[in-house]
């Protein structure tokens, strides 16, 4: 494939990235501001031997995605706030059954119907904690059309490798911004791998030493799989009554992600080496933060920033290192100050950490972040 340069919106970049990554199944329900993903999928999947289906609601959408994943397809859905809430039971099921899938959440303002046409970053905690029980997912967060493409591809790859639901936390601004997308000539695609063991000797839920499972068979390949949302033993047989087996599985479902946090880390530092003030930002807000930090530098202020492209697992070590020599840390977010608390958790040197929330649906202007840096 030749490198191609196009001007598209973030939602379209997600669709292009998904199909490039091997996505051949999409089930969704229309919702602003994510509907373009479903619309474009309905056009493109048929041309790529893929299945598009509009389901009756978001619960059905995530359920169909899970069914399709076990049917052998790379599958995804896309939604926004209210729909993301409805998908939580399915996300928990996917985490528990170790079903690879991708959920694109184009964040809008909430709670409830909230602000259908305005942007937010209010779902960051729901992405991690939205379903009941203890589990872990991976959540990636693009700040541009280019990153929407790249992180969608990455989301599919990580879903396959870790056998986990991966959430792409984009937002209304990133989703609807039209800008240049360089589609690379070559990309890495992680294909679904059949287990190394033959069906007769295969134990579907016996983990490898790193906590991950050995490939993933599909229905119809002769493995006689039992996929069950109840805590189970290595064969998939119900074991919710067994405290030892159940506890071990819950712990593994969490640790198979958190133990690999170092490998998953994806942050972009800017002017960080000598930074006195560090801005930590993600998603569309990272765009304003970049402009603000660059402007501060021209004014002789030792400002730096870290852009987070992964939110979960949280890049603890990378951020600890980045803020080590800073005097002050500023966390601008389009929510009440959620990721800021994660940063505070890392603050063992009693630095000043300032939350810079912005509610109401618009992103921070560079000036607002610059004011924060100046008052530091």
């Amino acid at each position, binding site marked *: 494939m030749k490198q191609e340069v196009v001007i598209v919106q973030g939602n379209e970049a997600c669709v292009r990235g998904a199909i490039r990554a091997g996505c051949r*199944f999409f*089930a969704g329900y229309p919702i602003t501001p994510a509907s373009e993903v479903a619309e474009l999928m309905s056009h493109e999947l*048929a*041309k*790529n*031997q*893929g*299945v598009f*289906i509009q*389901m*009756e*609601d978001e*619960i*059905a*959408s995530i*359920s*169909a*995605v*899970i*069914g*399709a*994943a*076990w*049917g*052998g*397809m790379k*599958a995804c859905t896309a939604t926004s706030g209210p729909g993301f809430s409805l998908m939580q*039971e*399915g996300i928990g*099921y996917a985490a528990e059954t170790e079903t690879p899938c991708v959920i694109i959440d184009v964040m809008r303002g909430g709670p409830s119907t909230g602000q259908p046409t305005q942007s937010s970053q209010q779902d960051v905690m729901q992405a991690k904690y939205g379903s009941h029980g203890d589990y872990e997912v991976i959540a990636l967060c693009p700040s541009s059309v280019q990153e929407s493409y790249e992180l969608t591809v990455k989301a599919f790859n990580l879903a396959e490798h870790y056998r986990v639901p991966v959430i792409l936390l984009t937002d209304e601004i990133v989703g609807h911004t039209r800008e240049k997308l360089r589609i690379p000539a070559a990309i890495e695609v992680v294909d679904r791998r059949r287990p190394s063991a033959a069906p007769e000797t295969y134990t579907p839920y016996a983990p490898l030493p790193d906590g991950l499972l050995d490939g993933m068979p*599909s*229905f*119809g390949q*002769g*493995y*006689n*799989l*039992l*996929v*069950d*949302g*109840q805590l189970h033993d290595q*064969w998939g*047989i*119900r074991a919710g009554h067994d405290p030892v087996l159940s506890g071990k599985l819950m712990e593994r479902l969490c640790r198979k992600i958190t133990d690999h946090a170092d490998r998953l880390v994806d942050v972009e530092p800017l002017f960080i080496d000598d930074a006195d003030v560090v801005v930590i930002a993600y998603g569309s807000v990272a765009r304003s933060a970049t402009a603000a930090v660059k402007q501060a530098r021209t004014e002789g202020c030792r400002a730096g920033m870290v852009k987070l492209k992964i939110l979960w697992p949280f890049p603890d070590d990378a951020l600890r290192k980045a803020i080590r020599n800073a005097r002050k840390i500023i966390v601008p977010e389009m929510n009440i100050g959620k990721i800021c608390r994660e940063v505070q958790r890392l603050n063992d040197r009693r630095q000043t950490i300032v939350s810079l929330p912005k509610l109401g649906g618009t992103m921070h202007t560079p000036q607002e972040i610059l004011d924060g840096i100046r008052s530091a």
Partner: protein
Amino acid sequence: MHPIAEKYLRKRALPFIFCSGCGHGTVLNAFLRVVDELGIIDDLSLVGGIGCSSWAPVFVNTDVLHTLHGRAIAAATGLKLADPKRHVVVFTGDGDCVGIGGNHFLHGARRNIDLTVIMLDNGIYGMTGGQMAPTTPTDARTQTSPYGNLEPPLDACAVAISAGATYVGRWTTAHPKGLAGGIKEAIRHKGFSFIDVVSQCPTQAGRYIYGTANPAELLRMIKERSIAKRKADGMSPEQLEGRIVVGKLHEETRRPELSERLYGIMKRG
């Protein structure tokens, strides 16, 4: 062990979770005889929701997706569309199918997707301890209707027909041969097929609604209430009050099936 059981049961998953005298084993028995007769075990995927009924597929040694409460038909839709060559059979209960999963039931039928949905209908939430279901008779006393059920039951077959299901039948655990015949027709039918199986629940519905936990007595009651479709056709709604109409209730072979249409578009794409 019976040769059919020996051949098809997932022995690691035994013992069954069903109470003694439960009708669900009869349905599984009829189903496995049909699977054996049709020789389709290698082309079969089973899906269950949540509840006693939805455990039935877990005991079959084939690919099984035991999903969330109410979501079996939605998950089966994804599974079928990912690999339309496979026979996808959904085991669901009355609460699972027309209570919490009602919306998915309507739209599965409307789409006429080639699924076989077997609803094990005991008229009560059994696994959670005997609460009223959308299929519980009016005035019946259950754990959540101590003064009698104030609501009328839903006729799942009528809903399936009006939503667009192209094969609909009703049988009971008192008619194991008719039931097996119905399941066989439903599996062979191309399109959304639905079988409502009235099944006895001695532990909950038996004790609380019908006044006996004796399965033989409950089966006798079911049999007495049952009436064949061809006999019922000439009777008034008043005459049919409280009766269970059994047989093939509806069949339509001309409506296109979803996965065929969808894969047709992909070929042209």
